[in-house]
């Protein structure tokens, strides 16, 4: 899918400022992400990428500026509304996969559907389809500890997409994988984003990862230096 940030944006970030004590980690950050658009957030360590991602997901709150997902202002929501926004509109992929260790692969994928009260038969069908799509149908009953790193990240991707969110936030999704597995995961992410029209904000140091994105926003010392 081609870049379309001119259409109604999925994500709108406007003049976001975030300080940790006296230190400013985000300074007047503004950009938008359109439906189906893939944006890479790049920059050296300490440039504020993960802090920005945490603000986008509502884990951190900006000190100034605004963030809205599909028109809903993230920074003003109370915890209940924020949780609701996350379960409906946002999917998250972590560098360290963060699967629930006591749930099987299928159960991990099913969890977001349960949170939005999808009926059980539909849940089963969507989980089966997601497992099939990420190539893990035979590993459905395996616990995370029994899966390889690549398999775990594929489960995490399926979990992030299964409830059909408008936006995926991914933090170094290949950072903990070898290059072959990393390439597979990136290909999968690109394919699924294209298939579902889900916007993707991807924090990465990797040129390969940034290459699957339509646009690259480069941060340095908390400011956008290019691509904003």
């Amino acid at each position: 899918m081609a870049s379309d940030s001119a259409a109604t944006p999925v994500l709108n970030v406007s003049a976001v400022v975030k300080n940790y004590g006296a230190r400013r980690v985000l300074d007047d950050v503004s950009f938008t992400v359109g439906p189906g658009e893939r944006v890479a957030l790049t920059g050296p360590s300490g440039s504020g990428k993960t802090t920005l991602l945490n603000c986008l997901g509502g884990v951190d709150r900006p000190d100034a500026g605004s963030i809205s997902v599909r028109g809903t202002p993230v920074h003003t929501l109370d915890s209940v509304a924020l949780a609701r926004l996350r379960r409906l509109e946002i999917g998250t992929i972590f560098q360290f996969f963060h699967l629930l260790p006591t749930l099987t692969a299928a159960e991990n994928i099913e969890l977001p559907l349960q949170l939005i009260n999808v009926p059980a038969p539909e849940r089963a069908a969507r989980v089966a389809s997601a497992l099939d799509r990420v190539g893990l149908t035979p590993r459905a009953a395996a616990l995370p500890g029994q899966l390889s790193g690549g398999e775990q990240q594929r489960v995490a991707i399926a979990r992030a997409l299964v409830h059909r969110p408008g936006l995926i936030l991914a933090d170094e999704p290949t950072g903990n994988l070898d290059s072959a597995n990393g390439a597979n995961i990136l290909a999968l992410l690109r394919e699924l984003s294209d298939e579902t029209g889900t916007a993707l904000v991807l924090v990465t140091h990797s040129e390969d990862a940034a290459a699957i994105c339509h646009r690259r926003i480069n941060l340095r010392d908390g400011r956008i230096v290019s691509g904003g």
Partner: protein
Amino acid sequence: MNVPVLSLLLRRFSLRHARLAPRATALLVGILALGVAVFVSIRLANRAAVSSFTHFTDTLTGQSDFIVQAPTGTLPESVLRELRTALGARPVQIIPVVEATAAQAQRPDEAAGFGRTSYTLLGVDLLSLANLASQSKVERGYFNQNQSQNPGQDLGTGGRAAQNGDAGADAFWRAYNAGPQVWVSAAFAPAVPKSLDLVLDERVRTLTVAGVIPTAKEAPRVPPTLLILDLPHLQELTGKVGRVDRVEFLIEPGPRAAERRDELKSILETLGGERWLVTTPGAQRESAETMTRAFRLNLTILSLIALLVGLYLIFQALDGAVVRRRTEIAILRSLGVEERAIQTAWLTEAAVLGLVGGALGVGLGWAGAQVAVRAVGQTVNALYYSSTVDAASLDPGEIALGLVVGLGASLIAGWWPARLAARTPPAQVLPRGVAPAAGGRWQRSFALGAVCVLLGVAFAQLPPLRLDGAGRFPLAGYAAAFFWIFGGGLMCGWLLPLLAHAARALGTVWAPGRVALSHLRRPSGRHRLSVAALHCAVGMAAGMAILVASFELTVRGWIERSLQADLYIASAGAQGASTANFISAAAADRLAAHPAVDAAARLTAARISLDGIPTLLTGTDLALMGARSDMPWIKAPDDPALWETARNARLALVSEAFSERFRKKAGDVLRVPTPAGLQTLTIAGIYADYGNERGSIMIDRAHLMQWLGDDRVTNVSLWLKPGSNADLLREELRKEYPGLAIFTNAKLRGEVLRIFRQTFAITYALEVIAVLVAVVGLALTLTSVLLDRREELTTLRALGFTRRELAGAAALEGGVVAGAAVAGGLTLSVALGWLLIYVINKQSFGWTLGFALPWGQLAALAAAVVGTGVAVSYLVGRWGADLPADREE
């Protein structure tokens, strides 16, 4: 051991963490101190109660060399002449003693009952005591010291002063000749009363206070409840004219003292034959220690529960600290700090906490002992002997023991967390997204649990440990309880996946339920430990509730059957096993002759020593008892001669406690020493008696009076004629006999049940504390678990879980843990209840009890534990939901 690394770890990490969280450190020390304090205070109180067993005469004469007393009852005064003649000119002092007890008289507004101050009255020959003092062996024998602390009441002068004819002597003689007067303890000062109103047998007597008992530096402290009278005065007051309770012997010091001791012993034993027993104060003290050993051991075990509770909390706290500091430990490991150094540092930290907590605990324990000693003293007074202890002292040995206990407890509690800390992998390989440790293999072993339960069954079949002096301690019973608690705890862990499986439908409709139940399908070591601890607390509390309910059911039944008279009358001075107060035969006859009385049963109880073991010999009108009372039989007599005075002189009934204690059954023969010689009795039957654990022999009172040469009565039961009003008669008799305690049937039943419930109050309090602590332990477990799952919480929040849903998941997790613990605990409680009733109680006290399940109490306990478990877990879950997110960058 790499000492510099260890030192670095302690200085830079352990100490800094303690400084950064001073309140948490103080709490940890406080918990441990409390556990040690309970242990130390009970121990000090026990020691004090035992060491308080001193002959009251010691405070006047110093310790006697020998004591001569009748096997039961009193000795005629004529033995004094006989003894003096036999001893000839040997330098031995003979000190006749009469000892009695008296209660403070009841105020007009005071309800009848037990619990009033009880005094020991010691009658000694004050003149010979003065002679004794003049021979300078025992300075404290003088009654001529200047009572400077209370000059206004200084009547207590005499002795040598009297012989010297000074002003003090005049005062002494005035007091001496004025009739019965008492000298009181210096503890009364400065408010020494002018007189004391005392109940002596059935009469209230007002005795003038002559002065304060003099003391010397090296003398034992005079107990506050000791009153001294001149021998003839006390003989007259107690109806023992011409008789003495015992004779004490003091050998004058000299080069041949040891030789003289042997000679004196031989003379006394040869002269006395079966008429008297020759003992020493040391032997009597030993006997007192033996008598109370099981009681003290039980208290110590209860105090250890408090220590165990403290140990569990310390464990939870240290375990939580390992989880919180895991990243730090992982970094240290990646920097090359070896496992052993980390484990040693954690153990050292635990040891320091233990030493500080132990030191504080010793101090707190000493303070607590000053309170506990009174409670222990009261129980010893009520059940065993006269204890005058009112303070507990601390010595270096006890301080060291307290420190060792504190240190040991914290090292035991810290061992597993230290091992966990040492096994933390280096930061580079710190696993992420891996299920928490499931605990050691033994912790997950159902088979080990089952083996422990079977071992418990085997131990429950074993007989009690026999202590000296017919004492019994149910060691195997306690071992069985331990194995059941331990095995049950292991098996309980297996309930968690079963319950999670049973509730799986909840997981399909409620996402937090799915998360919570998924953790219980493969429970962690922490889950298993928490469920085991809560199961233990619930099991013990519910087991105790079953014991008390069963006891109450049995005692109610016993009261129904054995208390059938309308009025029960005893001297108001009778305040427990340590007192001996009687009603004169004349007063008992007058009571029986009242026009409203249909029948009267008199009972006389005398303390005897059977094979050196103290027990009771009671005499009652067996014919009347057979006709009027429904005796609660363990083994009913089948010889009709028992109920006829003319034919029952060689027959006896014994209580169940006696039968257990002395291992005697129906048909066995007893050889009972009495002042009239050795009596041979055949046991005709065994009856239940829940009021006396020392056991008793019951014979026909006609024979007992003859053997004792004493017609006084311990209590009288009155059956009234139809139409008579027991309450009105009680009021009438109370006015006529102010020194008597008179109970109607209903009042006595109520009093018995009140005392019964009071007995279990401390035990209940300890059990409730154990349950509360176990619930707190559950909260601490969940705190550690949630800290351990911090990444998971971050993920769940990212997936859209609300704070309430996260708290709900924790509440369900805690609720299932509490539910499993309650299910296991209630099962355990039935087993423990059975063990307490049929093994431990039977072996300790020799009482047969029925079995009752207090359904209401058990249901309330279950609901309270699960409800509290859910509530605290919910709160912990809310706290966990607010934990800051992990930042990867």
